[in-house]
């Protein structure tokens, strides 16, 4: 199909370079440099989507990032489907495939459009009013239906195959916006040698010079000057120029988030390029040159395809060489629309009429339009647009009422004035101020080191804007030590006029009119909706916004906010500044999750920690479990074994012969210094001063409130050196806790703390044969019971490698923990494994470790305790140094609630049926016949099948549990009540003789 609306001799695109694309299955041809929107318009396609709520046909409103209507789905392949892409921003590439959204079965015939005719039902706040009854129907019926009918695009259902890049950058001057002002500011700063970053959301720099045919700089055409200047900037070492880069968020201390679209405009994605690049920039000064956005006119059926912003039509003509129609009407309250009409007229497009709401507009542009023979109607309003899938006419009427006249048109250009883009300024926490003369919000009080220049600062005229921007760039450069250079301030000139401005609904959409005059196109909010919200009691603009959802769509009300505010103010009978502006929030335009998440997904989402023996365990068939970031061997099934069988075998083997267990994930901290023992006395409940070097002790750490914080075996290597172990999960916070006290509460103590968790691999060898397995490999350590009793530590070598050899047990059997430098962990493990094989030892994992310790009633902090358990509750009073006058938690332990009767105490539970294994977390009651809700007196903390005991075992915390030994309690479960008997938590070898067995 030939691009019938492409006008030869107009626009800047090389019209010979064709790019083919498809829209809703139809093939079209555009040219390189087109956006999807300009290419569609070149083919005469205005209808591109259906609206959110009423499913009304919609066209292309704008030529930029503010677009509320032309949202399409771009599909590259099965995984690359991007919804809600603005056709006005998407650059065309050969082979682009786009689909319209929110329509069924087709764009031209959409069943959902019935909601347009039933519009009365869908007024503001209709969700809150209409679907109130019956209550249950909301979840089951209304919500799913509404969600299916409303909504925008369809999210992709496959993982994102693209990759995203991330960069941090620092600069002296960050210029946001690359129009005439931004370029001038960047030039002024860059020439002095300071570091400059200049970015713009468009593919090419120039901003409104894209359409402003009447602007020139230094005697050259404005657009040409912009391209030459940016080329010059890009060639400078101290300047980074970022096109296709949107500043989406302005955060504290001049920290600005930019997202650069790297390959969405290329015919083939990938090829080593990221899809997008996230820039996190810290700037000494930010120069905001974000320009302004044209507003539409609010009149009946102003959303018909073909009705668009005047500047957009001018952009399509002057940049893309595309006419938006053949017979165009203009509706304005502003001079800029005249320039659009004049440019179109000169290109051979018929201008059916200009309708100006102002009574006596006078400017050179008005005169020129008249001179060209264009009909100018002033003091009149367009009261409605005709047509459905495409605008076909505009009906005009004098403002005060009177005779209507319908003029056939195929496009309407509209302009009610320009809204300065203060979004980023506002995000910087600057306060905007209402300028009464021009009826707009402008930057007022600054909160950060930034400055606004050009149209976003209310400086419309390009000459003044360039001057202002250049001065701001020079000032920043001076302050940041730029070298003195001869100023080459560009001289801009323009015939453009931005005079004229109106806010709110035009006369044809007045208070007593029942018409659809859209304020917010994307969320289908009309002038009537906003009036209704005020009438229904919404007084704050924030409430009006939420009730009507105006400005809450993905475009964040870039074209609609000021109209909505003006209508609310008028209905409230207040001035605009009294009503106030809603808050601007990041992101300025939608940002992909990919750019934000960036590399942090899959394996890089969270680090995976593996122990030194991980590869060995993998090779020996270990099943792993995640413990925090660690991968720990859970159990080692032999052929044909399930988890239950494997764990039973491991448990029996350890007690019969021995087992090897990788305990490297335990936290390890070395406490060193002349005051090391004093420090340990303060941080742990136990006494340490009298512990001999070479001996170990089980230590309990409390928080200041008296509750158990962590535990572990501590070995005293020397009078001034302790090797402290912590729980796996507690390693980092215990280190932090110790550092905190050492640095801030006990800084007088001469102690150093060093995390050695990663430095030592720990191989636990447990069981009656443990000594026989280790002894042949050890040098320099006498491992006899006399020389090395239970709870002692020795230093020597194993397999020729230095070792800290602990004799300790987390199983209740004779046991050792072999600490070796982590690099030798696997080699020593393999040597121990070879020795172990001679004695029938096994490797065991965390599940067996848990069962064996539970058989002995050893607690796991965080499983059997939950942050509200005291040493007494856990039956560990013996670990508190009775003569001590101070340790962290000593005062907390005497708090009234901690010494009161009725606290939950750790006990064992035996099910009456030994085969029944309780569920961990199950609640315990005294009397199962009591009415619901029952009084729960405790819960199960640990529960396992114990092959060694030949029955199930469980630990629990029960109110006054230690006074209930032998009593029967009940555990109500969905399948029935389980009877349990309270017992000691030690189920195996109660006398403890096996520690030396």
């Amino acid at each position, binding site marked *: 199909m030939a691009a019938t609306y492409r006008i030869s001799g107009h626009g800047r695109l090389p019209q010979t370079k064709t790019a083919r694309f498809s829209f809703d299955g139809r093939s079209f041809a555009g040219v390189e440099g087109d956006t999807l929107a300009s290419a569609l318009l070149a083919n005469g396609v205005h209808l591109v989507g259906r609206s959110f709520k009423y499913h009304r046909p919609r066209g292309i409103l704008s030529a930029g990032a503010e677009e509320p209507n032309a949202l399409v789905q771009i599909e590259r392949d099965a995984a690359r489907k991007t919804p809600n892409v603005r056709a006005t921003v998407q650059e065309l590439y050969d082979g682009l495939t786009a689909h319209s959204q929110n329509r069924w079965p087709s764009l031209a015939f959409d069943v959902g459009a019935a909601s347009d005719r039933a519009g009365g039902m869908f007024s503001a706040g209709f969700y809150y009013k209409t679907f109130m009854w019956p209550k249950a129907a909301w979840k089951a019926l209304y919500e799913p239906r509404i969600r299916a009918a409303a909504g925008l695009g369809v999210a992709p259902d496959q993982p994102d195959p693209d990759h995203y890049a991330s960069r941090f950058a620092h600069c002296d001057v960050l210029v946001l916006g690359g129009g005439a002002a931004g370029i001038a500011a960047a030039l002024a700063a860059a020439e002095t040698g300071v570091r400059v970053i200049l970015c713009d959301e468009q593919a090419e720099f120039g901003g409104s010079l894209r359409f402003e045919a009447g602007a020139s700089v230094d005697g050259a055409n404005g657009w040409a000057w912009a391209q030459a200047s940016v080329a010059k900037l890009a060639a400078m070492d101290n300047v980074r120029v970022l096109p296709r880069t949107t500043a989406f968020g302005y955060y504290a201390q001049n920290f600005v988030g930019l997202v650069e679209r790297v390959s969405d405009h290329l015919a083939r994605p990938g090829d080593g390029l990221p899809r997008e690049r996230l820039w996190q920039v*810290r700037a000494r000064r930010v120069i905001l040159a974000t320009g302004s956005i044209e507003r539409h006119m609010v009149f009946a059926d102003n959303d018909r395809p073909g009705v668009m912003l005047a500047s957009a039509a001018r952009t399509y003509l002057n940049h893309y060489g595309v006419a938006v129609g053949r017979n165009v009407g203009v509706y304005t309250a502003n001079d800029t629309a005249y320039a659009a009409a004049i440019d179109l007229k000169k290109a051979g497009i018929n201008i059916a009429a200009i309708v100006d709401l102002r009574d006596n507009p006078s400017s050179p542009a008005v005169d020129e339009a008249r001179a060209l023979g264009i009909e100018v109607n002033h003091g009149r309003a367009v009261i409605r647009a005709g047509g459905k899938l495409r605008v076909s006419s505009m009906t005009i009427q004098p403002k005060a009422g009177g005779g209507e006249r319908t003029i056939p048109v195929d496009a309407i250009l509209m302009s009610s004035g320009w809204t300065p883009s203060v979004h980023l300024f506002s995000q910087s926490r600057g*306060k905007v101020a209402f300028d009464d003369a021009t009826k707009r919000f402008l930057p007022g009080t600054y909160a950060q080191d930034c400055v606004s220049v050009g149209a976003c600062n209310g400086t419309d005229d390009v000459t003044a804007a360039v001057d202002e921007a250049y001065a701001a760039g020079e000032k920043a450069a001076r302050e940041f030590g730029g070298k003195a250079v001869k100023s080459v301030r560009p001289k801009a000139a323009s015939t453009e006029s931005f005079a004229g401005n109106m806010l709110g609904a035009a006369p044809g959409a007045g208070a007593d009119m029942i018409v659809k005059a859209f304020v917010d196109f994307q969320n289908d909010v009309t002038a009537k909706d906003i009036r209704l919200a005020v009438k229904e009691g919404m007084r704050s603009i924030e409430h009006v916004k939420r009730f009507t959802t105006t400005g809450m769509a993905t475009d964040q009300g870039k074209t609609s906010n000021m109209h909505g505010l003006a209508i609310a103010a008028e209905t409230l009978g207040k001035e605009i*500044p009294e009503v106030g*502006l809603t808050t601007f929030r990041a992101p300025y335009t939608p940002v992909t999750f990919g750019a934000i998440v960036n590399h942090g997904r899959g394996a890089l989402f969270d680090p995976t920690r593996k122990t030194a023996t991980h590869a060995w365990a993998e090779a020996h068939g270990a099943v792993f479990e995640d413990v925090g970031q660690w991968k720990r061997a859970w159990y080692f099934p032999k052929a044909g074994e399930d988890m239950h069988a494997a764990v039973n075998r491991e448990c029996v083997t350890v007690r019969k012969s021995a087992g090897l267990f990788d305990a490297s994930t335990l936290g390890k901290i070395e406490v060193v210094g002349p005051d090391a023992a004093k420090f340990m006395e303060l941080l742990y409940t136990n006494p340490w001063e009298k512990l001999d070097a070479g001996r170990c002790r089980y230590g309990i750490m409390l928080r200041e409130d008296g509750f158990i914080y962590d535990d572990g075996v501590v070995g005293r290597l020397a009078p001034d050196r302790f090797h402290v172990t912590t729980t796996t999960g507690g390693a980092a916070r215990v280190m932090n806790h110790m*550092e905190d006290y050492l640095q801030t509460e006990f800084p007088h103590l001469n102690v150093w703390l060093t995390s050695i968790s990663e430095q030592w691999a720990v191989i636990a060898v447990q069981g009656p044969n443990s000594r026989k397995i280790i002894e042949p490999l050890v040098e320099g350590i006498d491992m006899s019971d006399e020389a090395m009793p239970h709870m002692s530590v020795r230093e020597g070598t194993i397999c020729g490698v230095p070792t800290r050899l602990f004799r300790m047990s987390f199983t209740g059997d004779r046991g050792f923990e072999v600490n070796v430098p982590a690099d030798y962990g696997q080699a020593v493990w393999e040597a121990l494994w070879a020795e172990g094989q001679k004695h029938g030892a096994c490797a065991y994992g965390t599940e067996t470790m848990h069962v064996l310790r539970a058989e002995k009633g050893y607690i796991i902090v965080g499983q059997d305790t939950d942050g509200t358990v005291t040493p007494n509750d856990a039956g560990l009073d013996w670990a508190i140094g009775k003569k001590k*006058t101070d340790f962290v938690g000593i005062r*907390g332990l005497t708090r*009234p609630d901690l010494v009161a009767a009725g606290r939950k105490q750790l006990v064992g539970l035996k099910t009456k049926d030994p085969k029944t294994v309780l569920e961990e977390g199950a609640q315990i009651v005294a009397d199962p016949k009591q009415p619901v809700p029952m009084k729960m007196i405790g819960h199960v903390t640990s529960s396992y099948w114990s092959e060694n005991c030949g029955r199930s075992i469980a630990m629990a915390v029960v109110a006054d549990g230690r006074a209930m030994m032998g009593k029967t309690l009940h555990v109500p479960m969905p399948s029935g009540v389980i009877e349990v008997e309270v017992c000691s938590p030690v189920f195996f070898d109660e006398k403890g003789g096996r520690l030396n067995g």
Partner: protein
Amino acid sequence: MLLIRCPYCEEARPELEFRNAGEAHVARPSNIAAESDEDFEKFFFIRSNPKGIIFERWRHMHGCARFFNAARDTVSDKFILTYKAGEPKPDLTAIAESGPAAWANRPPDQLNVKKPAAKRKTTKKGEA
């Protein structure tokens, strides 16, 4: 992302390197075991949670690992100053009071909201 100046490194570094560690200048009593329940409650549980300037502890976790103190405005998030642990609480009377809420772009009188009444008037007996 905030920049926080570490008084030990003498450099402003990104917030990511730091961890907050609660209110500052809450000293652990030297004879804590003898504290009354009321005094222990004040020491352990009660915090000032001010709207405005708070003195709080930070740790340069991924840097020098030192704990230090900071005066920060809880409304604007702005750090007034940072100083080493153990140094006395600085006198900030010279520093201006907090501005409008951080999330508000305009002062309350421009926000179309009423300022909260300073204090409820005491009603005389017999009046509603």
